[in-house]
């Protein structure tokens, strides 16, 4: 007989819990309609005011998940022309943004890497390199998950490595909820993915979208290599601290696991010999990364799409494989976000908003940078990391313009911390995937993650202050 769990709490409470998103949606919609009827004051145009209303309405929906993220994205695209903020042709044209097509290409490349089995083979090699030491395994896992997230979406890395780690935990008979090594292993996977995911455009779709928004606002951009050079040192430092916290907090001893080699050996046999398919994928992926670094003028989206097309031409993946990996929801959400951000700029609403914030609060430029970092890092714990970039970056960029802060620095200070979700399973798929293993509790990830959050703020702040100016990313525009 199937296990059925009956919730015996009062029905009114169950009703509220079940339909809280519907309540939030209705309340937000009523507030939105009411706000639209209020006369515009204070130098804001009618279109600007409506754009601001749509922006705030969508922020609430994105933050609360009252509607799926993609549906809110569609709502934003529809509301902008419907309320005559911008003509329909203009609003829909933002969907053709380069970042959207970059994301599409990145999804297809990731699908090819996963399908070929190359990612699993590399994971097994790395595990073997750890030599069976518990501490080394945690370290290698952190480093490997992070480095994989340099070239693949972090959630794809978590999805690939999760079954491997689960097998290891099962073979070692690690008990769920009690075994500290099990806790450290799964948290190492989650933390490795999210820390590495901020280092390049490819780790998370929020990174290219941040660059897309930067281009829409200022016409400037951050190259693939420049981004990586700016963020990688901070990532390495954070990985070191992550290793330190995981091994100390969960008291991981420096013992050798005798059965690990056997587990990996069996899995390697199941993978078979290195195939021609894997070789093709490896060559195309390496060439793609080189092209992103060397041929910036070609454009990152062009290179990503060319790489994706090559995967098809080499018969690595079929269109069916690709469609299974492409997250159309993310693509639609970003289309909506770019339309919304552009509407705010074109109607000057975002500058009005920045003026209002600055009129009541005037910290120094560097303090403002710290606020961007801290706000992003705390918000992303409760809100989807993509949503944080979408609603915080336009405001941050307009405030940066008023302060004379380098917009590239402002972009990095929102996009990078918004990916660092260390405490809660919400906001980032790798955390949710690893949490589903049942090895650690929310309380444990909260406590360990809290320390990591504080360290991340310090590391990023120090990077902005001392390192970034050395690579041409000074806080102030010269």
């Amino acid at each position, binding site marked *: 007989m199937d296990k*059925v769990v*009956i*919730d015996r709490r009062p029905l009114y409470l169950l009703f509220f819990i079940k339909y809280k998103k519907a309540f939030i949606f209705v309340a937000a919609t009523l507030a939105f309609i009411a706000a639209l009827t209020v006369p515009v004051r204070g130098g804001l145009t009618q279109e600007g005011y409506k754009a601001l209303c749509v922006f705030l309405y969508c922020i609430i929906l994105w933050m609360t*998940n009252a509607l799926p993220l993609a549906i809110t994205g569609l709502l934003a695209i529809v509301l902008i022309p419907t309320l005559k903020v911008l003509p329909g042709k203009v609003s829909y044209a933002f969907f053709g943004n380069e970042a959207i097509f970059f994301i599409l290409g990145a999804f297809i490349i990731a699908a090819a890497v996963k399908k070929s089995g190359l990612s699993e083979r590399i994971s097994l090699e790395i595990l073997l390199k750890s030599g069976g030491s518990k501490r080394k395994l945690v370290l290698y896992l952190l480093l490997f998950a992070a480095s994989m997230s340099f070239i693949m979406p972090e959630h794809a890395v978590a999805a690939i490595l999760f079954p491997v780690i689960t097998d290891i935990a099962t073979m070692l008979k690690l008990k769920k909820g009690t075994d500290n090594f099990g806790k450290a292993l799964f948290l190492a996977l989650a933390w490795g993915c999210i820390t590495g995911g901020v280092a390049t455009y490819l780790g998370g779709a929020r990174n290219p979208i941040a660059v897309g928004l930067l281009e829409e606002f200022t016409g400037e951009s951050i190259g693939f290599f420049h981004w990586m050079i700016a963020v990688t040192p901070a990532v390495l430092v954070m990985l070191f601290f992550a290793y330190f916290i995981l091994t100390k907090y969960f008291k991981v001893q420096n013992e050798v696991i005798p059965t690990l080699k056997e587990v990996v050996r069996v899995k390697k046999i199941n993978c078979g010999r290195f195939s021609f398919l894997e070789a093709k994928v490896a060559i195309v992926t390496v060439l793609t990364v080189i092209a992103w670094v060397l041929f910036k003028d070609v454009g990152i989206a062009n290179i990503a799409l060319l790489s994706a097309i090559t995967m098809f031409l080499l018969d690595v993946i079929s269109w069916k494989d690709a469609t299974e990996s492409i997250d159309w929801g993310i693509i639609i959400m970003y289309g909506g976000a770019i339309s919304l951000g552009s509407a705010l700029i074109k109607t000057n609403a975002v500058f009005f908003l920045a003026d209002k914030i600055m009129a009541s609060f005037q910290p120094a430029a560097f303090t403002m940078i710290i606020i961007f970092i801290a706000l992003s890092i705390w918000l992303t714990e409760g809100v989807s990391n993509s949503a944080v970039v979408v609603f915080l970056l336009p405001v941050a960029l307009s405030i940066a313009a008023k302060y004379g802060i380098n917009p590239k620095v402002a972009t990095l200070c929102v996009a990078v911390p918004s990916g660092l979700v260390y405490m809660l399973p919400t906001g980032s798929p790798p955390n949710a995937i690893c949490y589903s293993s049942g090895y650690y509790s929310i309380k444990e990830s909260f406590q360990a993650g809290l320390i990591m959050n504080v360290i991340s703020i310090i590391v990023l702040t120090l990077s902005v202050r001392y390192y970034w100016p050395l690579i041409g990313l000074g806080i102030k525009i010269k």
Partner: protein
Amino acid sequence: MDNGIGLDRNKVIVDLGKLHNIAVSGVLQKLKEIVYHNNVDVFYVLAGRYDNELHEFYFFKKFVEKLKGTFNIFLMLNTKYFPSTKYFDSIFALGVDALTLSFTEKDRGSGKFPETVRYITSLWPSGAVFTDIAAGECTGEKIKEAIAYFSKLKIIPRIMKADRCDLNSSFCLRDYIVREMKENGISFRWVNNFELCGIIQKVDGQKGRSKRKIAGKFAFELASLRRKLMLKEVESSFDSASL
């Protein structure tokens, strides 16, 4: 009823004991034909002997799942009483809207019986759990005692009239049941669909047929919502991560 499916006014009676060797899709096709040609308000499913054989329970489970997935029609299950709350949790989760329970003397003699029955009646909405009382030798006082006993447990007793008895003329059992139901705070909302004393009841007699139908449909939808709320879903925990 020879083939296990029969029609009684607005009620389709399905005897699973006679159907478990037939494909579920075949049974459903027959039911579709009946529902298409008739005005059906209730599926009355006799659970059969599946309680003795596990594979028959799985047939029953599959059948009810398909039935609820195909028709949006009130489903009453006639099953024997089990002293296991897990069993009733399962059939509640399947979408059974009302129950007719049959008890043995041994069941009623068990110390846990009142507790388990209270659990069952709290799982379904008020007035959705019935039991059949055989009129037997027409001993009115004994039947009245049984009516009072089950009403206190929030179970609605229905009198299975013996051929030689004329209970309605000897004493008014129907009125007695209604009075007991009122005293014990049992809802009347489902009673219109079922016979209490061998006749179709119109407890809320003032209402017209269409009004009753709308009220019944509304109550049915509310009960479905109530069930949906009470069933815990694991997937919901992943919602927050937008997975």
